[in-house]
């Protein structure tokens, strides 16, 4: 059992444990915070496995942006800060399927890899990763940037307050009719 193994075990335990708490916690905000811990542990795992860039991007984007966004949404939807009782649907199908998937995959992977020892791979530094991204993977990279743009535009459009109204807005009378349209959402 090398140091790497011990680290993998520890970090893996933290990740799985906090992940468990994310999906079972009755506190909404605590679930978000447990997610932070889980994602952080996963970043640590990446580091041990030698993917440095991925680890830091995980921390920056996932922990830094995504979870913050989720917490913002929690607050904007006036989620109860304390414990709430009716957060969960019936457990049986979820247990069956979730348990089945998780354990099935685990069994599959254990059966595939057993206790094989793999030597440490070379680390994925920013330089090496950059070579690959802008070399072999430049086209997907570009497509991804378009995707991000589309997501951005889409999020803005979806957030418009007059999205629920169902009447076609004439081009010239846009300004005046917008003012007279009753808000379908608030109030």
């Amino acid at each position: 059992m090398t140091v790497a193994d011990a680290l993998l075990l520890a970090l893996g335990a933290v990740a799985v444990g906090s992940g468990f708490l994310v999906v079972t916690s009755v506190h909404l905000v605590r679930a978000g915070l447990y997610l932070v811990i889980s994602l952080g542990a996963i970043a640590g795992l990446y580091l041990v496995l030698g993917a440095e860039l991925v680890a830091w991007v995980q921390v920056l984007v996932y922990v830094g942006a995504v979870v913050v966004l989720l917490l913002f949404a929690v607050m904007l939807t006036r989620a109860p800060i304390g414990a709430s009782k009716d957060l969960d649907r019936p457990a049986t199908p979820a247990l069956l399927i979730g348990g089945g998937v998780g354990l099935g995959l685990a069994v599959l992977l254990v059966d595939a890899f057993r206790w094989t020892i793999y030597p440490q791979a070379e680390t994925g530094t920013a330089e090496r990763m950059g070579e690959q991204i802008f070399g072999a993977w430049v086209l997907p990279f570009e497509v991804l940037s378009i995707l991000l743009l589309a997501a951005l535009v889409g999020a803005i459009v979806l957030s418009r307050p007059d999205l629920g109204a169902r009447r076609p807005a004439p081009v010239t009378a846009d300004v005046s009719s917008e003012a007279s349209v009753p808000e379908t959402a608030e109030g």
Partner: protein
Amino acid sequence: MIFGTLLVGVPLAVGLVGLLLPPGDGDRSRRRAAAALGIAGAAISLAVTVFLVLVATVFPRHSANDPIEFSHRWVRIGDLDITFGFSAGAAALYVALAVTIVALAVQVYSVAYLHDDPRYAPYAAQVSLFTGAMLLVVTANDLVLLLVGWEVMGACSYLLIGHDRRLPEAPRAAVKAFLVTRVGDVGFLLGIAILGVSAGTFQISEVLAHDYSPGTLTAALVLLLAGVAGKSAQFPLHTWLPDAMAGPTPISALIHAATMVAAGVYVVFRLYPLFDRSPAALAVLGVMAAITLLLGALSATAQDDIKRVLAWSTVSQIGYMTGALAVGSPGAALFHLLTHAAFKALLFLAAGAVIHAVGTNLMSRMGGLRRHMPVTFWSTAIGLGALAGLPPLAGFWSKENVLVAAAHATDGGGATPVWVAWLVWIAALIGVAVTAWYATRLLLRTFFGVARAGEDDWSIGFDDARYDRGSARPHDPPRAMRWPVILLAVPAALLGLVAYLPAFRSALELAGPHLDVAVLLPLALLVLGAGSSWWLWHAAPGTDPAVVFGRARPVFAAGFHLDAVQERLVVRPVRALAGLLKTVDERVVDAAVEGTGTTTTRLGTLAAAAHRAALPRAAVAVFAGALLLGVVAAWWGAAS
């Protein structure tokens, strides 16, 4: 050949053309056209028949027994040929003569009897069609052709019984007649099929010569007897004939007295060489005949409706004919058939005249008509005398022949079993007495005694839609009705004497009439029957002599309740079966067909509802499917 075709073809063609004519509702010119067509058709047939009879008997080409024959292949079904064959032997021609004479008389009579009928044209056309079909049965040389004629007769009988739509009982009676004869016709068809298929041909001349195995032959003949029983109103398929009196009286005369009911007898006569080889079939025939004879005679004694008396009388007299066939004397049967045609047609037409005059069928409302209707009275008297077997009228000679044949057969030696011969002979003797009894009763109640029908100027207030109450006083019928009656009285009186003609006798293979001591027995029975009836009448004038039967009277009047038995044993189970089949058809067959539609719709609705699952349920479904697929793939990969 031409004349054979003409004989059958003319009435059929006339009938078919006549059906195309408009019904002639109240329009005298149209009715005249239809009547003229009908009469012309019957007259032409009569002329052709007379010609053929002359050719056959007066100018014999070969011997008098050689029939005028021709055949032409018509249809081939597999190995079997169906031919268009005619065979007009002398016996067939005599029957054809009787048929055409009665048909012509009926056509003429109907002009006056149905003078206010709005649907005269189809009536006349159907009568012509019927005549053609009967002639086809008589002259056919091919079993299938005979069957065609047989069935057309049945159809015309149905149409004609139900002719007057204003009567409530007519359609029921027509359906009953059709269905009861149909039951017999099934057996008839099967019998013909067995005969034809075993012989390899349907031609009658070849069928008669073919050597059948006894079992096949008996089976086929017994099945044929079912058809004979149906068409000729023998026990147990006789129940339709009394009810068929709901049809117009000329139809009763033509179909249910003279011709159609005789067709069964004729068929047995025609196929007699086969019957001769099967004692079992003859035994069945004999038992049937004996029962029918007595059944008909006893039922006739207690009827109130004059036509029903004659109907039951017909049943009984045909029992004589079938009895003669059973004891091995087809000639005697045919002779009685001819005389019966004459006097029964006469009686029916005369009864029609009485009904026309009085306005009712019921004898309890008649009486004392002798003074007002002399022609009718004497004609009826002659007819009833012939019926009872009073010498020297026609019925005496033919009935004598039957009795002698039966007595002869009791000595044994023929194909008929001896016990059958005894049964037939004793039944026939008892029948003589009972026939005389009811014939006398009919005469007395209708024509003698106090006039129960109103002689006053005011008319009775019931509205019998059929009859024209022009004048209150009953009178002899108009010319068109009177002359057929008078003309039919001639053969009713004199036809028996042709038994002395050798040509006639050899054509029918009849024994000559020998008047010896054995004649006295039936004469004595006749006197007994007629005398007791008259004495009862004389003792209590105006009452029905049948009251002497006491409690048996309603049983006789209801025909021994055989209608009710038939209803219970056959009609109800068949109706129940039909209801069951209808339910099966609706609930199972239709439901299966409709069920495919509703099931598909329901499945579609179910699938649509499944598609409309809310988000969580949809998510569960998707993940479950993915898990399942993954497990299957892993398993497969591990297995291979």
